[in-house]
């Protein structure tokens, strides 16, 4: 996974959660970030879908991916990173 790819995911998630990008890292997740709740997760999905031009909504496994690491891995598997 490229460093640039991960930083795009971090930036997109940070923006969706209304957090400064430096508050997030690859280990950030729904478990350790209170603002990443169910609404936050939907906001992340919307932001990713916008960033990847509507291709995210077809990747159903993202619904249950609740950490930066998991999301990045799924995006990579689908050739988006």
């Amino acid at each position, binding site marked *: 996974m490229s460093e640039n790819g991960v930083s795009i995911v971090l930036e997109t998630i940070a923006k969706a959660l209304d957090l400064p990008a430096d508050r997030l890292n690859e280990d950030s997740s729904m478990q350790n970030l209170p603002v990443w709740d169910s609404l936050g997760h939907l906001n992340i999905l919307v932001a990713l879908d916008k960033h990847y031009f509507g291709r995210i909504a077809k*990747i159903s496994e993202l619904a249950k991916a609740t950490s930066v690491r998991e999301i990045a891995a799924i995006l990579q598997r689908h050739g988006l990173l």
Partner: protein
Amino acid sequence: MLKARIAGIEYALPLKTESMEDLQRDNPDWDLPKIFAKTGIRRRYISAPDQTAADLCCEAAEKIFESGRVSREEIDGVLFCTQSPDYALPTTACILHERLKLPKRSAAFDFNLGCSGFVYGLAIAGSMLDSSLLRTVLLLCGDTYTKYVDPHDRTCRPIFSDGGSATLLRHHPESSMGPFQLGTDGSGYRNLIVANSGVRGKGAGLGTLHMEGASVFLFTMDAVPQCVDSLLKRAQLSMEDVDLFVFHQASRVVLEAIVKKLGIPSEKVLIDLESIGNTVSATIPIALKRAAEAGRLKSGQRVLLMGFGVGYSWGGCLVQWA
């Protein structure tokens, strides 16, 4: 295009309502401002223990007769869309046929769909009217999902509400309904389900509603914009040709995501959730009726209707408002 038209809509809601404060009392740990930001819903309607979707739809249908727009003798079809029927059998539409004192020559049947049900109902009834098999139909859409909801389920309880609608449809020489675009993806059936509610599984008593919110959200984000695009292509129209978009009133976050993705100007989108909640297949007819009463929906306007949800199932159509 189908030679049929909507000739009237009425609806009925239970007397009991539930507010944000009621939710807080039962669930002190819930963050209500966050929940409201997601749902856009402040008040929901809760059916009484002995009140069913059929009762609500019966009340709505009686309002249609009281309005003088049609006589009981004219009705030759009653279609009931619900996922909370009175019984597994007999068909609840037959019971409604008796309660509404409709003529014996009337057809009556149920169909089991959730949030896409109203559009499917228009397609089914519209086709029967278009072919002149029937002349005047009552399409009843109602549900009492709150009976399936666990009071501590933060995903479902703040959203679902009970209600019933009655839509009068008539054969009409001028086409005012259509085209339609229907769709299904059964691979998502587990993401919105009342397990153990039928013959498969235990089949014992009422099960509990389970919703995988993020999965249903992704499905919506994928299917609905595509369906809108296909429908407009089929109709050879563009967004600008549509006066009002009336989506199933699922929740604020879902509606905003769809609207944003499609790039529809907000003034062309009807959002009517806050004081009623998500009444499943009844949201679209209730929203249409309230929009017409408020002067937001006017005769001759072209309206795009889009239902989507449990199944997964979705359907859209265009209607020229009479």
